[in-house]
C-alpha cells in the first residue's frame, strides 16, 4: 500500500515509538505523583515542553500547554480570546476554527470571514479591513490543509496589530509545524499544533501562547498544565511528539527540498489532459491538491484505493450540498463542478521516489478509466 494521505495523519514514527516505549513499560507513573518517580517524570515533561516549544518559538516569551489535539488547541484559543466584540478569521480555516467561531456567533460574538485569493491564501487587504477597535481575536491558518497554500502569518499578524494593537492573533499551525521553516515572531500570540501530522501519536496536540496571556481552562480538574488544562498527561504521546519533532526539525530543509521534487515530478508526469494543479506555487511541499477533469474525487479515491494507493479528497459522495464540496476550494473561486473533482495527495518524509512514480501510474490509469466511463 502506498500511503499518501499524510495531511490526514501520518504513520507514527517508528524511532519515536521505540524511544518513547519506556514511558509505557517502565516510567508509567503519574507525573503529579509526589514520589520521586512522579516528580522526575514531571521534570521530563517540562523538558519535552521546552524542546518542542524551542523548535519554533522563543522560550522566554512563549509557553506551551499540551492538549488532546489540534482541534482542542484551536477551541482553547477561540473560547479564551474570541469572547467579545468580533472575531476576524478566513474562509480558508479548518473546521476546528470555523465550527468554533460559529459557536461563538450563536453566543452573540460577531464573526467576520475574510475571503481568499484564487490561490487559497487569505486576501490580506480584505482581512485587515475587517479588523476594527472591537476585534478581539484574529485567527489565520498557516498552511491550508486542503491546498497547502501558505499564509505569511508573521507578516499578517504584524499588519493586523497595526490596525488594532489590542487584538490577540492566533494561527492554526497543524499543517505547518515541523514541515516548513518558521519561527513565531512577537506579533503572533497563539499557535496550534498536532502530533500525529508529523509522526507523533493521535491524541496529542499543543497550544503555544504568549506567557503574558491569561489562559483560562475549559477542562477543569487536577490542575495539570499549571491549571490551564487539567487531566493526567499522556506522557507516552507527548514523548512521541518530542522525538518526532527532534527528527522533523533536524531534517526540515532536506525533507522539504526532496518533497518539492516529488511534487514537481507528479505535476510533470500526471496526464495533463485530466489533471490540473490546484495547489499554488510555493505551497507546502507536503500537499499537492489536484483537480481530475470529469472524475469525481471520491470515486477516483476509491479506484486508487483498490489499486493500493491511499489519497485524500476535497469532495464526498454526499447528498448534502453543504458537505459535498470543499469550502476552501469554492472560496478560492472554483465552481462546484471543479470542486467535485478535487483530490489531495499528501506526502511525509517517509514517502519515496518509487512510491511517487507508482502513484502517478495508478492515478493516470484510474483517472483515464474513470474519465472514459464518464463520457
Amino acid at each position: 500500500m502506498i500511503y499518501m494521505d499524510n495531511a490526514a495523519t501520518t504513520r507514527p514514527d517508528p524511532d519515536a515509538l521505540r524511544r518513547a516505549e519506556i514511558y509505557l513499560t517502565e516510567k508509567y507513573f503519574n507525573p503529579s505523583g509526589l514520589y520521586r518517580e512522579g516528580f522526575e517524570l514531571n521534570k521530563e515533561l517540562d523538558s519535552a515542553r521546552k524542546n518542542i516549544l524551542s523548535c519554533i518559538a522563543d522560550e522566554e516569551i512563549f509557553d506551551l500547554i499540551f492538549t488532546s489535539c489540534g482541534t482542542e488547541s484551536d477551541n482553547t484559543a477561540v473560547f479564551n480570546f474570541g469572547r467579545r466584540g468580533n472575531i476576524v478569521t478566513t474562509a480558508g480555516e479548518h473546521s476546528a476554527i470555523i465550527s468554533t467561531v460559529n459557536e461563538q456567533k450563536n453566543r452573540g460574538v460577531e464573526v467576520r470571514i475574510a475571503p481568499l485569493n484564487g490561490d487559497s491564501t487569505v486576501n490580506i487587504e480584505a482581512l485587515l479591513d475587517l479588523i476594527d477597535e472591537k476585534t478581539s481575536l484574529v485567527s489565520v491558518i498557516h498552511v491550508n490543509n486542503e491546498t497547502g497554500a501558505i499564509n505569511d502569518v508573521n507578516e499578517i499578524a504584524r499588519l493586523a496589530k497595526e490596525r488594532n494593537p489590542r487584538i490577540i492573533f492566533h494561527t492554526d499551525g497543524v499543517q505547518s509545524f515541523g514541515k516548513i521553516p518558521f519561527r513565531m515572531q512577537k506579533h503572533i500570540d497563539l499557535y496550534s499544533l498536532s502530533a500525529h501530522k508529523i509522526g507523533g501519536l493521535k491524541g496529542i496536540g499543543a497550544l503555544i501562547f504568549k506567557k503574558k496571556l491569561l489562559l483560562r481552562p475549559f477542562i477543569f480538574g487536577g490542575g495539570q498544565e499549571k491549571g490551564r488544562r487539567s487531566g493526567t498527561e499522556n506522557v507516552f504521546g507527548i514523548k512521541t511528539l518530542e522525538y518526532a519533532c527532534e527528527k522533523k526539525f533536524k531534517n526540515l530543509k532536506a525533507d522539504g527540498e526532496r518533497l518539492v521534487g516529488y511534487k514537481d515530478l507528479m505535476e510533470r508526469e500526471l496526464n495533463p489532459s485530466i489533471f490540473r494543479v490546484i495547489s499554488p506555487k510555493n505551497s507546502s511541499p507536503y500537499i499537492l491538491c489536484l483537480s481530475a477533469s470529469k472524475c469525481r474525487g471520491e470515486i477516483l479515491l476509491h479506484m486508487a484505493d483498490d489499486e493500493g494507493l491511499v489519497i485524500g479528497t476535497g469532495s464526498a459522495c454526499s447528498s448534502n450540498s453543504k458537505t459535498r464540496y470543499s469550502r476552501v476550494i469554492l472560496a478560492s473561486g472554483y465552481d462546484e463542478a471543479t470542486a467535485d473533482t478535487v483530490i489531495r495527495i499528501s506526502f511525509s518524509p517517509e514517502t519515496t521516489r518509487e512510491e511517487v512514480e507508482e502513484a502517478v501510474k495508478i492515478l493516470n490509469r484510474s483517472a483515464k478509466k474513470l474519465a472514459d466511463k464518464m463520457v
Partner: protein
Amino acid sequence: MEKVIIIRYAELFLKGKNRGYFERAFSNNIEKALQGISHELIKTSGRYLVENFDVEETEKIVSRLKKVFGIHTMSIALRVSSSMADIAEAAKSISRKKGRFKVETHRADKKFPMHSVEVSAEIGGLLLETYRGLSVDIHEPEFTVYVDIRENGTTLVFSEFFEGPNGMPVGTAGRGLLLISGGIDSPVAGHMIAKRGMKVDCLHFHSYPYTNMQAKEKVVDLAKTLASYEGGLNLYIVSVTKIQEAIHEHCAEDLMVTLLRRFMFRIAERLAKNTSHQCLITGESLGQVASQTIEGMTSSNSVVQDLPILRPLVGFDKNEIIERSVAMGAYEISILPYEDCCTVFLPKYPAIRPKMNYILEEEAKLDVDGLIKEAFETIEKIEIK
C-alpha cells in the same frame, strides 16, 4: 409483593382454530426479544406475564417488548395475594401522592367476596386516608390505580398502560424480500409489512467505487433497526456497478434509472426464489420521484414474473412516511448524507413516463442475463441478529 409485566396482545384474539399457531409464534418472538435477560414467560387467560426477573432490568424488558409485533399494551404490575390488605399495600406503593385519581377494579375471580365497585371504593378510601394530596375524580382522573383480581388467588395492581407496536407476530405471514436503499422510505415499508407478521429480509444494491463504504454501512445500520423488530434478519448486498456502467455506455441517458430498476427487480426476484421469499417489498410512493410514476412501476413489474410486489407506501405523503420513520427509529440514520446510489450517472432529465417499446429497444442493447449473472457473483450476505 412481586413485580411482573403484563403483556396484552393485539389481533390474536381474532384468530379461531389456528390461534395456537399464532400464540406459539408470539411467545417465541417475546422469548427471542428477551434473550439474555433471565425471566419466565407465563401464559394466562388472554395475556402473558413476564415474571421472575431482576427488577433492575424492568426498563430494558419494556423497551425490548415495545418492538415485538403483536403486543397491544403492557403494564408493570405488582402481584400480591388476593387479600384486601395486600391489595391496599400494593395500591399505596404505586399511587401518586397527590392529584385526582380513581380506582378501577376488574374481577376475573367471580368467587372473590366483594364486587368490583366495592373493592374500588375501599381501596380508593384507603388511598385518600394515606395521602392527603389526593382527591377522587372518576370522570377525568390524572391517574388510575387498576386492580385486576385473577382466578388463581393473586391480584395484579398497576397504574399505567404502555403502548405496544400492535400488529401480528413476525413469522406468521410468510417471508418477503425488501429492496432497501439508504433512504427514508424502504425501512418504513419493511417495518409496515413486518408488522403484519411477515418475516422481512433485505436486499441492497450498491455501486462501489461510485458510492462509498459509509453508504453501505448506513444500510447495515438501517437493516439493524428493522431487525430489532423481527428478532434478526438477513441482508443481501449486490453490486450493480457493472450494470450501471453498461447502461451508461450503451443506452439512452434518460432511461438510466428505469433500466437499472428493471435489473434490480430481476435480481430481487431471482434471489427471492433462491431464498424462499414469497414476495418483493419496496418503499415506492406514487409520484415521489421520477422513477415512481405508474409507468415506472409498470416497467419494473413487467420483469417480475411470479412474485407479487408489495408497495405499502404507495399512497403515502412524504410527511407521513417521515413520521413513521421517526417512530421506528430509522430517521436519524436515513438522513445521514451518504449517497446510496451513484449520482454521477444520473440523467439530468430522466424519463418520467417511459414507453414500453422504447425501454425494450434500449434494453435489447444489453446482455441482460450476462450482467445479472455477473451481479450475482458479487452477492454478500450479512446475518443481522
